[in-house]
């Protein structure tokens, strides 16, 4: 595989755990066909993960799904080639997904998730080996020290329904910076800057390392790609690479030409007939309060942009509402900028795309906020009322609420909103 700056390390199947850390590109030759086919197979895995994540799958379900996706897509007729296929496909996709911020973010997130669930399948010995490969040689907590904090560790364990630590539970004492996800969800005990990480939590440590390595590598690859590879491979790899990145990500709604425009005069009608619930709610609140907080302005504003509201129309639409509350002068001074910014006319001039469902579901609306996903952030009672207002009732209401209880937020949208949409407006559910 001459296109990569390859290191000397050659991977052999039997010396390491089946999981690769992808620290260096393989020194292998690859047939052009395989180059593309392997990448597509891996994309199927990543895409499957992406779908599952946006449906709010629980960790146990993810574990099963990832193993299954991997088994189905990543096999090879020649068993000794399996590891190579893994590595090659990973590096090909790095090329594909290194080229913009959004692509990098998606790839990073999916590869990290994939890595996480594959790591959990490894034996404890293999896990320790992978840790040392990352130079994660953390001190195991001594018995004396363990005794000292045992009460607190038990408290944490109970708070996340994990088995209580015993004298032979292994704990690592690591700087809290290295386990951000455990800190964020309060799944570790913290003292004086150190997190007490149990053996069954080390996956977080390793994943953090994996993520930061990959993140840096993607930026480097991008630099290399734009500075040399893209030009050198113009006739061979470049077309494949460029085609691959759009292949599985669905249509690109940042291109407004796909849509009929939407104009201010029929915006109310369209909102009532076709907006998904979260946007309908924001839209209603805006009409009611003549104001939305930042999160709401972003979520609705970018959505309106996505469905074809032109910048000038957007400005007059928001101004008509906001000026009733804050006056038109303050609107011009404080709010107009960010609307132009969303349309790529200010600041770094990025043409922003609408928020994805995943992002909306993951948001954390607080006092006075109206953004977020109603299926997730509303109480059952409020959701019932909102759906009722939309004309959903009876059995289909129950079905939705059922899905919500099982945290399939996106499916709820699928069912309820999709069914009501006239076909030509289905693009409004851009995130599905």
């Amino acid at each position, binding site marked *: 595989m001459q296109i990569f700056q390859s290191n000397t390390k050659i991977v052999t199947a039997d010396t390491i755990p089946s999981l690769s850390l992808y620290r260096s590109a393989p020194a292998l030759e690859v047939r052009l066909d395989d180059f593309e086919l392997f990448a597509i197979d891996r994309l199927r895995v990543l895409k499957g993960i992406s779908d599952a994540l946006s449906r709010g799958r629980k960790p146990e379900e993810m574990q099963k799904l990832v193993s299954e996706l991997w088994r189905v897509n990543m096999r090879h007729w020649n068993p000794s080639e399996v590891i190579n296929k893994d590595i090659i496909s990973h590096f090909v996709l790095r090329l594909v997904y290194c080229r913009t911020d959004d692509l990098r973010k998606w790839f990073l997130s999916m590869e990290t998730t994939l890595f996480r669930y594959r790591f959990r399948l490894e034996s404890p010995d293999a896990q320790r080996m992978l840790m040392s490969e990352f130079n994660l040689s953390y001190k195991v907590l001594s018995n004396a020290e363990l005794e000292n904090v045992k009460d*607190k560790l038990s408290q944490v364990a109970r708070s996340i329904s994990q088995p209580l630590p015993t004298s032979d539970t292994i704990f690592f004492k690591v700087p809290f910076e290295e386990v951000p996800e455990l800190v964020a969800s309060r799944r570790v005990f913290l003292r004086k800057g150190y997190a007490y990480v149990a053996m069954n939590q080390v996956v977080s440590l390793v994943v953090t390392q994996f993520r930061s390595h990959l993140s840096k590598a993607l930026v480097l690859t991008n630099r290399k790609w734009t500075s040399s590879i893209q030009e050198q491979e113009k006739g061979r790899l470049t077309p494949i690479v460029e085609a691959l990145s759009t292949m599985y990500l669905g249509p690109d709604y940042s291109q407004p030409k796909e849509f009929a425009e939407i104009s201010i005069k029929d915006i109310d009608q369209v909102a009532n007939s076709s907006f998904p619930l979260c946007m309908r709610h924001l839209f209603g609140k805006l009409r009611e309060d003549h104001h939305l907080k930042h999160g709401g302005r972003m979520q609705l504003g970018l959505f309106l942009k996505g469905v074809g509201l032109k910048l000038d129309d957007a400005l007059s639409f928001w101004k008509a509402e906001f000026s009733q509350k804050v006056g038109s002068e303050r609107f011009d001074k404080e709010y107009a900028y960010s609307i132009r910014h969303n349309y790529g006319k200010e600041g770094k001039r990025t043409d922003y795309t609408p928020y994805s469902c995943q992002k909306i579901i993951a948001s954390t609306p*607080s*006092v006075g906020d109206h953004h977020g996903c*109603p299926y997730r952030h*509303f109480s059952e009672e409020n959701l019932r009322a909102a759906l009722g207002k939309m004309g959903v009732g009876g059995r289909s209401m129950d079905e939705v609420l059922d899905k919500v209880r099982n945290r399939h937020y996106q499916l709820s949208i699928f069912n309820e909103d999709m069914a009501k949409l006239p076909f030509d407006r289905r693009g409004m559910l851009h995130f599905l």
Partner: protein
Amino acid sequence: MDSLPAISPKRAKGQVAGSSNLSFFRVDFGNMTKEEGFGDGRDDMLIDGDHGKSITDGFSPEYLKAYYGMLFPHAEIFKWMSYGNDGKHPACDHSYFGRREFSFTLDNDIYLRFQSFNNAAELENSIKEKCPFKIDIGPVYSVDPAKRHAYAQAGDNVFTPVERELIFDIDMSDYDDVRYCCSGADVCIDCWPLMTIAIKVMDTALRDDFGFNHILWVYSGRRGVHCWVCDGRARRLTNEQRAAVADYFRVYKGNENSNKMVSLTGLPLHPLLVRSYADVLRGFFEEKLLCTQKLLSNEERFQKILDLIPNEDIAAELQSRWQENRRSSISKEDVNAIRWEQLKHLVKSAKQKAPEVRQCVEEIVFSYTYPRLDMEVSKHMNHLLKAPFCIHPKTGRVCIPIDPENCDDFDPSAVPTLSELLEELNSSRADVNDEFNRTSLGRSVKFFRTSFLEPLLKSCKEEMESAYNAKLQQSKNSLSW
């Protein structure tokens, strides 16, 4: 300046310009129209001259100019922002201060972002000259932020934030659904304890859990507090790590669309929450807020709390009891306290039959007391935050540091205002050299210096020293090869 003439409102309107010993206070004629447009109501007061030589309440660009000229602790702010890099030690990074973004908000909401200064004098001169209504502090960037356009051409994100204090912003208006004394931008002595709680909970956790030592709490000038965590380790956190720290504190999730404001999982609580509840929240709730906010005094208020009980029978029983009770309330004891005891008692005795209520007392207390952070401020390195010792333009109050050890005694209405300070300057003896000691700001600056700045700089120096020695050692080792 050896003698200080009284600063009269009349002079402030224009006569001062000719007065040679008032250079700090000269009116910039280019700004006259704006000044006259400022605070219409007060202009009338100025003209009728009733106030003679005293300084009128509030805020004006002239007062601000005097404040920046004589009271604002420029040197301390510079020292702080330099983190020891302004010294002579060979490990000092002399570009450090110059890569810090300052942002000025001028009269008429003109924002000047990406200001940077190479030394203390530049910073001080610029502040005095521009007389910003607000000074914000941003991150330290990889390159001088004033020259960011020159680097933008090179592509590849050369211009990027590399260091920033870990900051928290807690704003009283986020508590509007749990306080009844004021709303929005107003605060009073009855709701301020909510901020005291936030300081106590956060300060303890930042020190004990995260091991930070150099933490500065600042009154935001109106309705909230800011927190600056300045340890080297805190300044170097990535965005992801910042978000993790902020999330560690997050309990509050709700808004008006979801009934629950706080969601405890039903499992035993994490040590952070156990400690916060036992040491701070419960006490403040039962001994202060319950009665001062009259949380259970009328139907609308107690209904809101009853809604948080996940068992309808219990809620209904309390409701009917309290509705009757209203008519025959003869006890001397506070009705809120009585009802709270009844609620707790009933919930406790129902725990066997209705396990879902097990945590609902805690959940209520958390809902009404636990700190509510503006998460976005903490999550990203490039968020701006108002500098300490600024003057809040609406209240005229100085953003003074709050001592977390004595935060119970902090009273926002006793914070010195711009006009009070100038009054003090005018009436103090002219031969006192140290301007700080002539006003009530002196105590705050002294606190900033001795309790925050000196320990911080000492540890910066140690950190620098040990990093330097390690580097020396390394290069020695490589030489010996």
